[in-house]
């Protein structure tokens, strides 16, 4: 055990010497041409075959996927009719509305009623207030378009995740195949598979919806597996003894018992679906995402922030309502009497819907929030930006230059100067140290894949940008997490900020960042840090909070100060959780790369983006898979380290 630190120190010295002093001969710095496999060509050819000629019997794959898309289109259209379009006659500008969509009054009242039903009137009022925000800030129409696709995408993602999870539970071989596929679904950037999705599922909102589902579903599958496995074996035995058929056992016992855990997955699906709003809008979803993009294209920062916050508002409403509905105590059965009495809220919502629809013909303000009543903060944001820009640019520029010269550029030069066999060896060695030969084989193989793609340089730049960003995110996130865990108020405030950061599309802050720091790696780094900060804070706080009370009491009894308790008890105990946080931070940082490509980085993200704009499926997927390879290496190494840490703690306890 004691030898590893020495080995790592030795390797570090070798690396420094290699990077600084030795001129590495050709073919050793970056993998030689001869090693490159024409992966992009193979994948493009495979994709072309899949989309053009692959067939199952007489039905081509494309017909099949198109049919599936049409199946989804029906409920989606219905949701749009209800929320966005109403029933109209004619199309486009000649369309006349026969029955209007739900009015803002009706939807807001429904949100309040649902909140009240799910928990209490406070939740109802919060939900209502957030809906009102959408109306007041003129985001209503776009928000309803987004909502229409979310209300279809989330159930699809949840149902799909449940289905796959259940299948994997019953059928081990399937689980073994599914697990790496999920890894890829989570780590390959969406941009990389956008074009095949478009070709297979048609252009338009449905393809966007499906891309959203692909992106948002994996956590649901994993949570389903864990949650169902976590059902106590006694309960499963009971279900069998009660004479449940397999179907009854799943529906009536396993799923309801696992529900609280499953809701964690539902929450993830909601959050990730809303994360996809921007990208989905690029391929036809419209709605708030399109508003964000359009605003930013016009440098309307305020407009971007307002639309971005509207996405956050939707996320908060959906998430809180979902959580409350799942944990709702069964008090609902109390009411007696006829249907009208038992369902006062449903009656109220129906009444408001009808009345507001009718009143809408006389007073349009009831149907659509009038334009004159909308508020905008556009001017404020523009002035604020200008003020900062004009008064503080020099200081900010100095900060930027200092960081570039002292941190970013040295790290980049160092990584780019390392010979590839050395990097590969280090990765495999780390795998061996942390998880034995199996892990070493996996990390080594993935490293070799990176070498064979011909994207080594981009991969190293990715490593550098992500590495530095993750480092900074941890440096900021861990103290914030400690602070959040230190008290109720701090926890609440930081929690709210974190939630916002997670759901606010990064595009919203990307443009102001560019205005202050210009295009380039520094701006990219700021965007990555802001986004990847979230798990660093959250997991640290969670880890610290869940240290057993007994241990802390033991510390207090032995006369430890607050600082000592934190350093000697809480932090060490929270290490496994914090490592998980680090893991998530890395994954999020990697997932931001494609977005930071938009401010001019030159990493794998840019490669994916270039491939997208050239509709080059193979190139995009190879770059995407390279990102996934890095993500999986990091994930497995840290996972092994966390496991080791946990075992040490438990063994010691």
């Amino acid at each position, binding site marked *: 055990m004691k030898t590893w630190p020495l080995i790592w120190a030795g390797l570090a010295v070798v690396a420094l010497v290699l990077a600084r002093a030795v001129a590495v001969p050709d073919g050793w710095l970056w993998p030689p041409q001869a090693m490159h496999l024409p992966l992009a060509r193979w994948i493009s050819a495979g994709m072309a075959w899949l989309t053009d000629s692959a067939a199952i019997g007489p039905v081509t794959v494309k017909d099949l996927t198109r049919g599936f898309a049409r199946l989804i289109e029906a409920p989606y259209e219905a949701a749009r009719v209800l929320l966005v379009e109403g029933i109209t006659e004619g199309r486009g500008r000649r369309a006349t509305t026969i029955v209007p969509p739900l009015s803002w009054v009706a939807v807001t009242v429904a949100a309040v009623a649902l909140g009240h039903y799910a928990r209490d009137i406070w939740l109802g009022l919060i939900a209502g207030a957030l809906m009102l925000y959408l109306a007041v800030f003129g985001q209503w129409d776009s928000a309803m378009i987004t909502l229409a696709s979310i209300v279809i995408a989330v159930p699809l993602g949840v149902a799909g995740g449940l289905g796959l999870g259940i299948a994997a539970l019953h059928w081990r071989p399937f689980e073994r195949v599914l697990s790496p596929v999920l890894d890829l679904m989570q780590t390959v950037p969406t941009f990389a598979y956008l074009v095949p999705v478009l070709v297979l599922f048609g252009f338009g909102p449905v393809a966007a919806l499906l891309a959203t589902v692909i992106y948002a579903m994996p956590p649901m599958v994993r949570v389903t597996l864990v949650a169902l496995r976590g059902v*106590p074996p*006694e*309960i499963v*035995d*009971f279900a*069998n*003894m*009660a*004479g*449940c*058929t397999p179907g*009854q056992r799943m529906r*009536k*016992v396993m799923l*309801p*018992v696992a*529900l609280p855990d499953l809701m964690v997955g539902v929450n993830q699906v909601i959050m990730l679906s809303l994360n996809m709003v921007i990208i989905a809008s690029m391929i036809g979803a419209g709605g708030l995402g399109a508003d964000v993009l359009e605003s930013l294209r016009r440098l309307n920062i305020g407009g971007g922030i307002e639309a971005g916050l509207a996405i956050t508002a939707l996320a908060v409403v959906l998430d809180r309502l979902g959580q409350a509905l799942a944990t709702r*105590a*069964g008090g609902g*059965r109390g009411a007696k009497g006829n249907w009208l009495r038992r369902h006062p809220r449903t009656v109220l919502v129906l009444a408001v819907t009808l009345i507001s629809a009718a009143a809408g013909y006389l007073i349009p303000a009831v149907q659509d929030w009038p334009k004159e009543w909308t508020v905008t903060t556009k001017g404020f944001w523009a002035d604020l930006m200008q003020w900062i820009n004009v008064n503080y640019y020099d200081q900010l520029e100095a900060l930027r230059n200092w960081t570039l010269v002292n941190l970013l550029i040295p790290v980049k030069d160092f990584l780019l100067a390392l010979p590839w066999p050395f990097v590969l060896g280090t990765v495999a060695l780390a795998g061996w140290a942390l998880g034995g030969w199996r892990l070493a084989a996996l990390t080594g193989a993935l490293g070799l894949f990176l070498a064979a793609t011909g994207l080594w340089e981009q991969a190293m730049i990715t490593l550098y940008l992500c590495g530095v960003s993750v480092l900074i995110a941890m440096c900021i996130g861990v103290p914030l997490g400690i602070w959040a865990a230190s008290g109720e108020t701090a926890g609440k405030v930081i929690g709210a900020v974190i939630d916002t950061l997670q759901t606010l599309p990064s595009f919203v802050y990307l443009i102001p960042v560019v205005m202050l720091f210009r295009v380039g790696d520094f701006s990219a780094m700021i965007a990555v840090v802001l986004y990847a900060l979230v798990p660093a804070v959250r997991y640290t706080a969670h880890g610290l909070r869940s240290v057993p009370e007994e241990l802390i009491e033991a510390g207090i009894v032995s006369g430890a100060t607050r600082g000592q308790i934190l350093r000697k008890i809480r932090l060490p105990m929270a290490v496994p959780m914090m490592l998980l946080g680090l893991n998530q931070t890395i994954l999020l940082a990697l997932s931001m790369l494609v977005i930071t490509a938009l401010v001019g980085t030159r990493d794998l993200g840019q490669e994916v983006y270039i491939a997208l704009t050239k509709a080059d499926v193979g190139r995009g997927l190879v770059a995407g898979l390279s990102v996934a390879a890095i993500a999986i290496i990091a994930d497995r190494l840290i996972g092994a380290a966390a496991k080791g840490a946990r075992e040490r703690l438990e063994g010691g306890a």
Partner: protein
Amino acid sequence: MTRPVKLACRHVWKLYGPHPERLVGKSPSLDEIRASGHVGAVRDVSLNIGEGEIFVIMGLSGSGKSTLVRCLSRLIEPTAGEILYDGEDLLKASPARMIEIRRHHMGMVFQHFALLPHLTVLENVAFPLEVQGMARPAREARAREVIALVGLQGREGHYPRQLSGGQQQRVGIARSLAVEPDLWFLDEPFSALDPLIRREMQEEFLRIQKQLKKTIVFITHDFDEAIRLADHIAIMKDGAVVQVASPEELVLAPADDYVRAFTAHVSRAKVITLGRIAVPGVPADVAGTLPAEARVEAVAEQVVTAGRPFAVEREGAVIGHVTPQAVIDVLIGRGG
């Protein structure tokens, strides 16, 4: 007093490990099983469980009790053997037939209650009936009956988390009785409860059994509990049954040191019946008549206070008498 056999098992094996089915044909010894990297959770167990009796399975933790009882109800597929329920081999029953048998003939109570957290007491108890497709009014009426039987009236609308451990297990008992099973499995039903509550529940259990007369397979690792309840006890060790006997025989004639260790600290008065210490003949001055099945502990006070012998009868016929001295001898552990 032999009862008709309700449930029997013949040479039941359950091995865990890489190739259990290959190993089992050879009737391997414990060492062979271990050497080949397997776990012998149940080894060659044969039992006869009579109708209407309380059959207790005892053993240390890990001795295979739960595994055996799950083999008997076929929750676990045994590696080899036969399970005969009313003469029908359960291991050959189709899945549909198994569901049918469990729906109407078996009930089970679990150590950790296994209540469904999302259902109320009433819904939990009615659940096995719901699964059968019984209409709501009928199943709720039946559920209310069993809830009354276990003394939980008024709690029908509560959720499990709102109940104490003892109350939760009453719900578990009520639920297992809702379908009127004739085979009742209880896997350490009272182990998770406090000693006082445990005692109370045991009495409750005996009361219910007196009323219902089910065939019961009861698991415990608490020998006191076993002798309080059992008609027969099977002692398990490392997956095998070491001895099957009445509590009294176990104490008086333990098959080996393992069983002896179990019974060593048991007060003999708790297990020895009057039938065993009765001597032939009936003196003239008997103070009364006592049943031969009565345990010494239960009648000691009566006999000693009376200061005179009691006649002992079995199934209506007088078989002899007991003297206060004989009772005192048992109480203080002298002779036997």
